[in-house]
């Protein structure tokens, strides 16, 4: 039997908030957590958060990352000070935490290393690997491809790219008392049971197909032989000189692939602008010279319908049973940026109503969602990725 409890806090003091959330979770469990998954927004000092958690649970496995906002039952808190944690205590599940550095420079190598470490712990029944890469560096596609190659085919890899407060400055990954940037934190959950994963999109392609004509180190410099920023900027109001969150959310592109000719499934969003040459950085990766892309437009109606379908899909994978927990990784562009102060009502509550309003639920607003698509783990933008754990069938 597994016990899962949620703790959260909005205190401004990093240690105080951590202790408050821990106390709530520990009270829910009735004992010291075996493992803790923690997401905290950028107002906190994450070193203090990690150190405090380690003090509170010296033998507890601690994994987490910085977040743009924290999602819990009925809430979506995209504010400077929101901290949520999911605490685990189980007699049949085991938890292993990992932190792989060097992701920004060598993402594929980081994927290979994470796979090696995950296999090295030798769990007989791995259920799912939760990964939280830096959201502002690296190449997540290269990382996931390498990770997938190192793990059994079809093994569930789910997670979200760490985020900050839409300042695009720095994201943090934590494991134990280690807090890093340009890294990957990960949690391997093992034991009997079933992991169900579902991902839902919400964009529609619009306009003509463009060809990427120049890419260096993940930075897209030219489209159709012209500076990339000139093309993207032409879609923004007021001739902006910088790339800001309100502009980013309108500049996503869909990758046209053989099995996705209209480019609606794999969406990439530029998060950084290099003003010197007008190149844009897509941390999701997967865009190379010759890639065909189309601008995509956020569609709230599609998003709502897709989210509901995602929740139903999650339930059907569990045979209609109540999951032990749900983790939600939702794009930062789908929360307050799209729905303002109604984000919780628009994107969180409808899904929770379908899956269960009393299921332990934690998530965060990411800079990229990670979930399987057509058989392999993929990086996404403007999606919701859900992971549900179901207990073993009697």
């Amino acid at each position: 039997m597994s016990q899962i409890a949620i703790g959260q806090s909005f205190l401004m003091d990093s240690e105080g908030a951590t202790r408050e959330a821990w106390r709530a979770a520990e009270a829910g469990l009735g004992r010291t957590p075996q493992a803790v998954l923690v997401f905290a927004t950028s107002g906190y000092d994450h070193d203090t958060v990690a150190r405090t958690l380690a003090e509170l649970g010296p033998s507890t496995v601690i994994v987490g990352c910085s977040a743009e906002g924290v999602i819990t039952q009925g809430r979506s808190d995209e504010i400077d000070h929101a901290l949520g944690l999911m605490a685990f205590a189980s007699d049949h599940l085991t938890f292993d935490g990992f932190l792989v550095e060097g992701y920004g420079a060598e993402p594929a190598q980081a994927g290979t290393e994470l796979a090696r470490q995950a296999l090295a712990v030798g769990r007989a029944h791995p259920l799912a690997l939760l990964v939280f890469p830096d959201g502002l560096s690296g190449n997540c596609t290269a990382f996931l491809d390498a990770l997938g190659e190192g793990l059994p085919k079809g093994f569930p890899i789910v997670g979200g790219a760490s985020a900050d407060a839409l300042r695009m400055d720095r994201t943090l990954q934590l494991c134990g008392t280690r807090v890093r940037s340009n890294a990957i934190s990960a949690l391997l959950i093992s034991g009997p049971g079933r992991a169900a994963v579902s991902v839902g999109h919400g964009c529609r392609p619009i306009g003509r197909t463009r060809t990427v004509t120049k890419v260096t180190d993940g930075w897209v410099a030219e489209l159709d032989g012209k500076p990339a920023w000139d093309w993207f900027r032409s879609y923004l109001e007021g001739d902006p000189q910088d790339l800001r969150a309100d502009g980013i959310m309108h500049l996503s592109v869909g990758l046209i692939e053989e099995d996705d000719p209209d480019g609606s499934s794999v969406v990439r969003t530029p998060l950084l602008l290099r003003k010197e040459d007008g190149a844009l950085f897509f941390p999701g990766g997967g865009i190379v010279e010759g890639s065909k892309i189309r601008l995509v437009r956020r569609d709230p109606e599609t998003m709502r319908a897709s989210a509901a379908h995602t929740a139903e899909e999650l339930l059907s994978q569990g045979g209609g049973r109540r999951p032990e927990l749900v983790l939600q990784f939702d794009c930062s562009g789908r929360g307050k940026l799209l729905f303002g102060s109604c984000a919780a009502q628009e994107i969180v509550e409808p899904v929770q109503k379908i899956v269960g309003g009393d299921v332990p639920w934690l998530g965060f607003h990411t800079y990229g969602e990670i979930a399987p698509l057509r058989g392999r783990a993929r990086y996404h933008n403007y999606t919701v990725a859900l992971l549900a754990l179901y207990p073993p069938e009697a």
Partner: protein
Amino acid sequence: MSERAPDPDDQEIARLRREVAELRAENDDLDGQVSLLVKTEHRLTRAQFEADRQLSRVRALSSFALASSGDESALDIAGRAARLLVEWFSVDRVVLVHVDEEGQGWTSGDGVPRARAPSALVELCRGVDPVVATLAELPWAIAVVTAEDARPAAETAFAVLPLGDSRGVVGLALWCRPNPRASYFSEPPSPKHLPFLTLLGNHVRHGLATTRLTRELRESTHELAQNNERLEVSLATVKQAHERLAQAAKLEAIGRLAGGIAHDFNNLLTVILANASLVLEDLPGDSSLRDDVEPILDAAQRARNLTSQLLLYSRKQESRPEELRLDVVVEQFSRIASRLIGEHIRLRISHDPRVGTVRVDRTQIDQALMNLATNARDAMPNGGTLSVETRPASTEELRRAGRPSTERFVVLSVADTGVGIDPQARDKIFEPFFTTKDARGTGLGLAIVRTVVEEARGHVLVSAEPQGGTRFSLLFPEASQPPRVAHTQSTLASILVVEDEDSIRETVSRILGRRGYRVVEARTGHEALAVVRSGFPLDLLVTDVVMPERTGPMVAAELREARPGLRVLYMSGYTFDALKEGELRPDERFLRKPFTPEQLLGEVSAALALRPSEQPSQAPPSQAAAKP
């Protein structure tokens, strides 16, 4: 010139070129439409951001106002405002400038109270309107913040919300510098935020006012409650005073009544007692008339007691304290106690040899002892034990009496094993005329006990439980000197008896004559002087105090002119102004009416034993006391 037919290829080329141009135009148009659409959405997004920010702030302000309650302290309210400002603007520091009567203080952005407030900031907060500027625009304010630990850069946004009035918090100040960790949704304070800052300032000000009013209301309520309490105490005091006044009036009435009849009554009783005694003395031991005379004596004795008690309680009977050994008093009481308490009650007497003397009126202490013994007897109708003891007061008894433990008190304890005292009756037992004995009791017994003890500056302690017996402990201050030992004097002296009441004078003369004294009578002071001038060898003057022409002391003074060193025994049945406690000369004594022959003879003997004084005779003020 001949015209050449159009080349079909050229025509096709031209058509294709037109189509390409049209397609390009369509594509350009499509691009333009897409761009227009996305730009419009971008504009809408920005507008939505701003609307959402405004809505969030309005909601936050509303929540802030709704959360205000009078239970918060000024610091709590300012702390909430500080946290709100931090969330809105992601500011580095929020300063609460607090200059109320509790002193100064400030709170940082995380709401943790700190000490000290820069005085220059206080001055800034005394402005009327909120201020939003950069520190560069407020150069003198830089001096303010340099006093703080974290000095912001000059370009730091700086806002001040004056909140206070003359009595309370002056204001909130906040400043902000670029914060890479701040949320994209927050923004530094700027003049466009003045409406919100003003609204927040108003909410804080109202919150502070509510807190102050609530505090004042509580204080007023508390004060009112205290006043009510004091009023109730005052009312109770007034009520008690009324009761005491009524009691005093009652006592005064009793006193007047008692005093009015006491003199005549006592004179009558003196005659009855003396003559009945003489008759009884003359009767042979086996005379049947004794059965007729003894009830007369008994009735007269009881009448004398009643008169005495009335006079004692109404304080119309003058107290004559003397130094006594209580063990002697108790021993003498024990000789007559068996007749009082009956054979079914065992009397147990004990004395502690450490006790000293006390200063108390002998008659009164006898009376008190009698009253307590009578009550004890009535409380033990089926028999029991009456314990009377004398001992030094214990520390606990001194504590109960409210006396320092260093003081020395002698205890006369009277305890019975009777029915005890009902708790409801316990508070009333010392009230005059309160009795549990129905018609049998006068209700004066314990009231007199308390009067006697208080007269001697002592205390009465009661320990009683229903069916558990009762103990009265009479505490008397221990006197410093041992009592004088009385001694008898030989008889056959010459005595002048001055008394205007013939029956008393004759009775007194008869008693003294029978004992062998040489007695001469006089009805007035004038007659007495005549006796002295006649050369009568006078050893003792026995005189009434209150007489029509001259008072006893006046007669004594006049006689002493002729017979210096004349010893005097005054007789009186009433309080009189002519002779007060302490005014008796060393060669004078006093006998209270009514008296028995034994008492008269004892006092005469004691007076004759006095050493004649060499004190010159002083004529008392002329006083013609009317015979009551």
